[in-house]
């Protein structure tokens, strides 16, 4: 662990302007004393795509959920785009405005149409005029290929379509970074690629992204860096070539052997 801590510290000092996420020694215990994050550090730079992999229960989802304060943590520090994440609620909302999140279960609002889902936060949080929000929402829905379903309710869409709407909804806030928490795990297999395609395009457009996913093909192609977590720690990180081609730790090798069959 120490090597990564020191690397993180150096990176912060050198190009702190360029860092969107600086997480240092983040530790979290669940109320039942389970030590789910045991000192995790990660710096994500502007335009970087980081894929977080690891066995279930390794704390990877919990870790990225600390970046927008959906999970509280007890030790360490997190800075998002220069804003320190403190328990103060004002600060939390400021951070959440800059961090988009896409969930495994889509979590679209069922009582709002697709268009209203995308418009809600810009209007209610950013204070945009409805017309402006509608125009931006339309453009985003076109980008994810759902514009022709704009007036339907989420329940009328397939899982893949719903997840693409969820991506558009998060993008409507014009976030500095996008978090993806296993975005394709709840999808039928034939719908996985339509969501990954949208994510790939998004990465190419220069969006800063942190993705928890088991999609090896996506990780190989799109990730600038792969972070491997196990038992609440970052065990290993590197480029996709290093990670898949030449894993160093036994724990990583064991994991890769399991997922690559």
């Amino acid at each position, binding site marked *: 662990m120490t090597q990564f801590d020191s690397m993180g510290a150096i990176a912060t000092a050198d190009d702190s302007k360029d860092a969107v996420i600086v997480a240092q020694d983040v530790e979290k215990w669940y109320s039942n004393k389970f030590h789910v994050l045991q000192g995790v550090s990660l710096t994500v730079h502007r335009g970087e795509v980081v894929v977080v992999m690891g066995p279930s229960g390794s704390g990877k989802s919990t870790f990225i959920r600390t970046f927008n304060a959906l999970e509280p943590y007890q030790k360490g520090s997190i800075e998002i785009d220069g804003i320190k994440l403190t328990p103060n609620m004002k600060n939390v909302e400021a951070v959440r405005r800059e*961090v988009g999140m896409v969930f495994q279960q889509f979590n679209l609002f069922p*009582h709002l149409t697709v268009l209203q889902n995308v418009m809600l936060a810009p209007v209610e949080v950013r204070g945009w005029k409805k017309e402006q929000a509608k125009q931006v929402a339309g453009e985003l829905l076109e980008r994810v290929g759902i514009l022709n379903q704009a007036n339907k309710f989420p329940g009328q869409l397939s899982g893949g379509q719903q997840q693409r709407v969820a991506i558009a909804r998060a993008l409507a806030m014009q976030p500095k970074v996008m978090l993806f928490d296993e975005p394709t795990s709840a999808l039928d297999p034939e719908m996985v690629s339509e969501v990954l395609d949208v994510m790939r395009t998004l990465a190419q457009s220069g969006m800063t992204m942190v993705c928890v996913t088991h999609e090896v093909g996506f990780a190989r192609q799109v990730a600038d860096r792969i972070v491997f977590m196990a038992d609440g720690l970052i065990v290993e990180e590197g480029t996709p070539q290093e990670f898949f081609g030449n894993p160093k730790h036994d724990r990583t090798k064991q994991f890769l052997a399991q997922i690559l069959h």
Partner: protein
Amino acid sequence: MDYTMQFSVVWNNVGLFIQGVFLTLQLALTSIAFGLVLGVLGALGRTSGNKILNAIAVAYVEFIRNTPFLIQLFFFFFGLPGIGLRLTPWQASVLALAINFGAYSTEIIRAGIEGIGKGQIEAGMALGLSKLKVFRHVVLMPALGNIYPSLVSQIVIAILFTSVVSQISAEELTFVGNFLQSRTFRSFEIYLTIAFLYLGIVWFVKFLAFLIQQKFFSFMQYIR
């Protein structure tokens, strides 16, 4: 059985009956509207996680749901003047009915709110919505959609409850019946007519409820 039906008492007083129907509708809809606001606030208190707000809401629900409505009504009309607060029969009735309906709907709406998935609330928070805006824009409508049928049943009960306020001489449909009965002694014809008029009122309100469901809760049919 040598009672001769004389529905002329009804025909001769059609205007009064119609007036009674409208007064009852007005009384019911006004008190239900205020009561719904109380119910949403009560449910918000019950689910807020704030111990004091929760305690206030629990005390409110317990007190109202476990005491007779007639006593609540008498308290507002005959009791409050004791501390210098004199209400008209109409005001006391609206107040008592709204507070009563609010307590029952608090528990119904609370159940609806508790049925909303954690993921929905997290999605709202992740977009930067404040706690109150998450409630208003993310939780409220699906919660009401979840419990809409129970809420409509409670609304029907509330409509029928309005007849009790004739006891403090608030003018509504039952009051009209009592008034005519005391003059003509045609109880059978009058109360049978009144019963059918309540049935009509309830059907009308159920139809309104159906229209509201079509307009605001049509999304429910797509929720799996």
